[in-house]
């Protein structure tokens, strides 16, 4: 008891000492402090990482054979490989590694490391592994199909020919990062080092992971020896601050250099602050409304179309999300191969009413609408509820936590739903597959795409979408995706309405922050601080 009293008193004294005048500490000169919501991060292992925050860290800690460089509008750019070629039959890819590069540990980077990394991702078979296994790799054949011929030559043999851009785009994903095989093997445990790599790093990128504490902070330390040139700052500290107002205050005070999650209102509020500036990039996230085709009314083509005419796209963008979302009505995000900018729909009550009457519902009907309980979804949901009411459709909004909504969606138990979809890798197939393919509409289908979740049975479109990914002629491939999207806009039970913009606000003295956006790689190595 007495010890406790003494302990408490000490604590109280220390707190009182805290009242002493303080020189207000700005962030250290060689350190970039970023405020960001990072509670989605569950691992730093590139073979496992598939969430937003985690993948961003992986991008800056690991190198890949090649990347979609956001500085060159996503152009495929060599990173650890210096060149690659495809065999005439389209089945074998040969990568030549750049010579003389080293991992953080000092170990040399060889083709054997690249082969091990890809094999490891396939064998571990975590969430992002399908980006690789869709080319036919299994834990039994991967050692034979992904091989280091010598120290600088890597060959990869895929199951059947695909568009070369498709394969190479997939190799830019974080799951294809190259890990230091010797270091990982010395910490392998029983799971190929998965447990160890969750919280440690074995890469060659511009930064190494010094510390990650879940829902608290990530500390990265510069790799002075990086082959792309030493980063200009010594440390990047990412602090988990989930409350946007707190991010804003810290940024204005100079305690944070960059704030990543300011909402529309906070951005408007700081727009006059001369000490701050805004950088932005288009994100691949598409916000869409989807209609479950098991619903007897929602499955009528006229009703699907009517609902598309009953959304006030313009009003939603203008009043609710300006500066954080762009109007967008097709399934491929801006910046992707084959993306189109067509926006065929607008708010048109007469047209919608005529369509509803033709479908036999002149007086409308009632449906439920699942929406995530967060902004801007809540506001947009209410706007859609109000505009659908003009057409006589009575909408009951059901709000839920993100995972609640998704659980219901994946079980196909919704009527109408509004959620976001982000591409898994930088190739049109990622979105085309999920929005326009449904190989098996039965409940226990193997592939549960978004089309499946809405029970939209489309054997013909599925075939054509599959053909697009095998198309080796780039121009034909582009044209196929464009045509698919236009048809999708007409007939699908999906109404894409917005594409997200990523906005970061930073102090005036901070430069060189590259938002990867659609290209999936936000880069820290060019950051400077004056």
């Amino acid at each position, binding site marked *: 008891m007495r010890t406790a009293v003494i302990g408490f008193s000490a604590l109280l004294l220390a707190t009182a000492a805290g009242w002493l005048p303080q020189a207000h500490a700005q962030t250290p000169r060689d350190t970039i402090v970023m405020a960001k919501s990072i509670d989605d991060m569950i691992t730093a292992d590139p073979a496992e990482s598939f969430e937003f925050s985690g993948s961003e860290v992986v991008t800056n800690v690991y190198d890949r054979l090649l990347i979609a460089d956001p500085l060159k509008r996503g152009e495929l750019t060599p990173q650890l490989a210096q060149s690659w070629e495809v065999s005439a039959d389209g089945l074998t890819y040969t990568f030549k590694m750049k010579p003389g590069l080293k991992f953080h540990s000092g170990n040399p980077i060889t083709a054997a490391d690249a082969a091990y990394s890809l094999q490891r991702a396939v064998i571990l078979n975590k969430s992002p592994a399908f980006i690789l296994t869709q080319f036919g790799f299994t834990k039994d054949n991967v050692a034979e199909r992904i091989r280091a011929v010598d120290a600088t030559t890597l060959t990869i043999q895929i199951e059947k020919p695909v568009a070369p851009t498709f394969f190479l785009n997939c190799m830019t994903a974080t799951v294809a990062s190259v890990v230091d095989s010797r270091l990982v093997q010395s910490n392998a445990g029983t799971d190929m080092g998965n447990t160890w790599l969750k919280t440690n790093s074995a890469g060659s990128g511009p930064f190494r992971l010094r510390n990650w504490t879940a829902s608290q902070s990530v500390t990265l330390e510069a790799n002075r020896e990086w082959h792309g040139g030493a980063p200009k700052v010594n440390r990047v500290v990412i602090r988990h*601050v989930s409350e946007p107002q707190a991010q804003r205050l810290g940024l204005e005070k100079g305690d944070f250099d960059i704030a990543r999650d300011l909402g529309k209102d906070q951005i408007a509020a700081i727009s006059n602050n001369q000490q701050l500036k805004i950088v932005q990039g288009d994100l691949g996230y598409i916000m869409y409304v989807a209609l479950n085709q098991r619903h007897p009314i929602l499955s009528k083509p006229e009703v699907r179309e009517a609902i598309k005419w009953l959304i006030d796209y313009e009003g939603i963008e203008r009043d609710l999300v300006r500066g954080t979302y762009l109007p967008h009505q097709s399934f491929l995000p801006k910046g992707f191969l084959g993306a189109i900018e067509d926006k065929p729909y607008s708010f048109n009550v007469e047209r919608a009413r005529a369509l509803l009457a033709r479908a036999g519902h002149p007086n409308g009907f009632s449906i439920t609408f699942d929406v995530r309980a967060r902004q801007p979804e809540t506001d947009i949901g209410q706007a859609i509820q109000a505009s659908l009411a003009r057409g006589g459709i009575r909408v009951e909004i059901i709000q839920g936590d993100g995972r609640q909504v998704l659980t219901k969606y994946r079980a196909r138990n919704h009527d109408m739903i509004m959620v976001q979809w982000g591409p898994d890798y930088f190739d049109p197939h990622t979105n085309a597959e999920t929005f326009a393919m449904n190989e098996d509409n039965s409940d226990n289908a193997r592939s549960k795409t978004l089309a499946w979740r809405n029970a939209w049975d489309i054997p013909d479109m599925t075939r054509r979408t599959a053909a697009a990914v095998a198309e080796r002629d780039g121009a034909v491939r582009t044209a196929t995706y464009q045509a698919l999207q236009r048809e999708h806009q007409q007939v699908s039970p999906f109404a894409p309405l917005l594409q997200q913009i990523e906005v970061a606000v930073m102090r005036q003295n901070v430069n060189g922050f590259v938002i990867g956006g659609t290209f999936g790689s936000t880069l820290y190595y060019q950051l400077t601080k004056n």
Partner: protein
Amino acid sequence: MASASLGQRVVQPVVRLIVSLALTFFGLLLVTFIIGRVMPIDPALAALGDRAPADVVDRFREEMGLNLPLWQQFIVYVTKVFEGDFGRSVLSSRPVLEDIARVFPATLELATVATLLGVALGVPMGVLAAVHQGRWPDHVIRVVGLFGYSVPVFWLGLVGLLVFYAKLDWVPGPGRINIAYQDFVDPITGVMVIDAMLQGEWEAAGSAARHLILPSSILAYFSLAYISRMTRSFMIEQLKQEYITTARVKGASEARVVWRHALGNVAVPLTTVVTLSYANLLEGSVLTETVFAWPGLGRYITDSLLNADMNAVLGGTIVVGLVFVSLNLLADVLYRTLDPRAR
């Protein structure tokens, strides 16, 4: 007689205590487990994310035993807990016990300072209000208390940040320590101020202490409101008693009558009030922790619950249960020590 009294005095209460603890924890586990399982969230989603392919999800469900009947899952879980294995959190991918050892001290630190401040200010305010019942000090204190009690702590936190951090620059912003000292202080006790002092990092300790001021003051305001109101009503009750009149008649000074005689008798029920308010704060104040980016227990449990991270939720619940039970025991002990009638 002697042997019977030994049994009655020592063995029986201990057995009773153990049985009641066991029942409490079993009930706690059962209820939390059921809540977790009836929630309309798929735990596989939490661990793997929305984009995981179906076969990975199936494998995960198999590995985690999510395909077993509920009662079997519960038995498996309880058995493991008895072996000291609380499982891993899917969110942090670390053992739950390790996570709790990290987040609980953060909450402990905040709650302790808040309670100390709450008592140091709340009790005198309550006494003053009682002594000046119905006059202006009483009204002022009532308004101050009512404000603290009724204003959402979330709002209070943000306004506190705006005024004392952004405008006046008296206190530092969100977080537990200045970024310059990030990763400097190795966790020993987990209480950052103490760890920094133990390692001789005085500047870091100062920074950690400064970061405590605002969030703990805001929580303190909340508990102060409650403590001062309770003190006031206890005191009013006591000041009506005959022994007070007797004391005054005997010529005791007014200060002695109020602070010694009356407050002395109020100490006993007040201990229970303070302990309960402390226990409440120890559960973690989710909103305060969110506003101040304070990685504490409340936020940990809430985040875990919303992500269906059931190992973490159950682990956290056991800690909260433990805290409640121990504080109740403590209140009991204090009660016996302070109240001669209970000896």
